[in-house]
């Protein structure tokens, strides 16, 4: 099982397309309504970050499995400005969230695994996985 699909994020409407793709895949894997909403919210947040800060980027969604465990992998990549202070960006209450629980810490909470690779002036790749329980 190695189904890949992706959406380019250029305009705000692409956020909706990425969500749709994520929801379809999540449903297909077998996630329940609550987890579908969580995955979609995470995708929304990642796509929005691309749209707001990098202008152009891509959301890739992949069904994965490990033994009996099934899951969904979300890869958000862009060639934007990168994140200068990752630790700060991952901090709760940091400006992007402002107590609304969103931003990258929100994505990390919504998903099970979260990895961020970023180089200033080159771009950012965020990989997030949700496993089905």
């Amino acid at each position: 099982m190695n189904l890949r699909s992706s959406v380019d994020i250029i305009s705000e409407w692409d956020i909706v397309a990425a969500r749709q793709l994520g929801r379809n895949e999540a449903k297909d894997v077998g996630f329940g309504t609550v987890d579908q909403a969580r995955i979609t919210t995470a995708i929304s947040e990642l796509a929005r970050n691309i749209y707001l800060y990098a202008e152009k980027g891509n959301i890739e969604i992949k069904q994965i499995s490990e033994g009996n465990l099934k899951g969904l992998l979300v890869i958000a990549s862009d060639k934007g400005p990168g994140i200068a202070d990752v630790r700060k960006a991952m901090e709760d209450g940091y400006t992007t969230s402002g107590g609304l629980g969103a931003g990258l810490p929100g994505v990390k909470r919504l998903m099970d695994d979260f990895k961020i690779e970023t180089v200033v002036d080159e771009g950012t790749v965020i990989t997030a996985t949700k496993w089905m329980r």
Partner: protein
Amino acid sequence: MPQEFKKQYKEILEKYILRQTEHNLYEGQNISRQLIQKNISPEEVISIHKASLEEIMSDLPEEVWHSFDLLIEVMVRYGLALKEHQTLIQKQQNIKMEMELAANVQQTLLKTKVPNLVDLDIGMISVPAKEMNGDYTHFLHDSTHVGIAVADVIGKGIPAALCMSMIKYGMDSLDGAETNPVIVLDVINRIVEKSVSDSMFISMFYGKYDTSKSEFTYASAGHEPPLFYCSESSSFSELQAKGLLLGVIPNVKYEQHSIALKKGDFVVMMTDGVTECRSKEGFIEQQTIMDIIENVKDQCAQEMVEYVFHKLEELQDFEQRDDFTLVIFKKV
């Protein structure tokens, strides 16, 4: 894990749909407490509600079920905000604990022993407004002299406390209790001027009591003037001494004065936390402070300072705005 609550919730919901009593609502409140304790997020609760309702009233129109999916989507962010809130509270608790530790370290570091003398009764109290104290008191003494430093960093909290540590090391570098107040202030001023940023100011009073002459010699670097109580005339006066705040410029000429202490006379040294006490009506008058002190002038110096603190605390409705330090030297 939410499954265990599902059964409970379904029962409550079933009862409530049947009879809308306060009792049934109360049970709903109680389960919400458990849900929060178990970290069940809002979106999960709605999902439990939806699933329970599906079992109780499966014949509801399709549209109703769709509406729950929208609600779940909306509540995901509330769940996130809640979790963030929880971590921030945890963080705040950690910071508070660290502050308490730091305050302990500071207390140990700045600890000063009130000397015991035959002819001079000394009382001291120093209470910080926040965890860390920006007031500083330090005693030096030998067989015939007692030196007393009272300093106040303009500002409160951690920056003020860090600054205090520097004064302490300055004081430790002094030779002994015999050193004249102007020299003490001169030394400390040079240290502070060199090491503290321009935006930080420290006021300091230094007094020295000479037991052989029953004489109190003092100098001040822009500090609150002490009150002198003359027992013979039963009157207070301020001990004025001109001098610039510490750390402004390296070479400052401080004034030095002396007074003789007779039996029953006492000197009250303080920080602006004492003189700038505020009640609902505004600043507490100096006269009020004098009256309070005079009420207890016959008690021992330690009882006096504690009495004054509690009285002023009362007048301020127990809301302490600034670090509070009071030292009394009383000739016996």
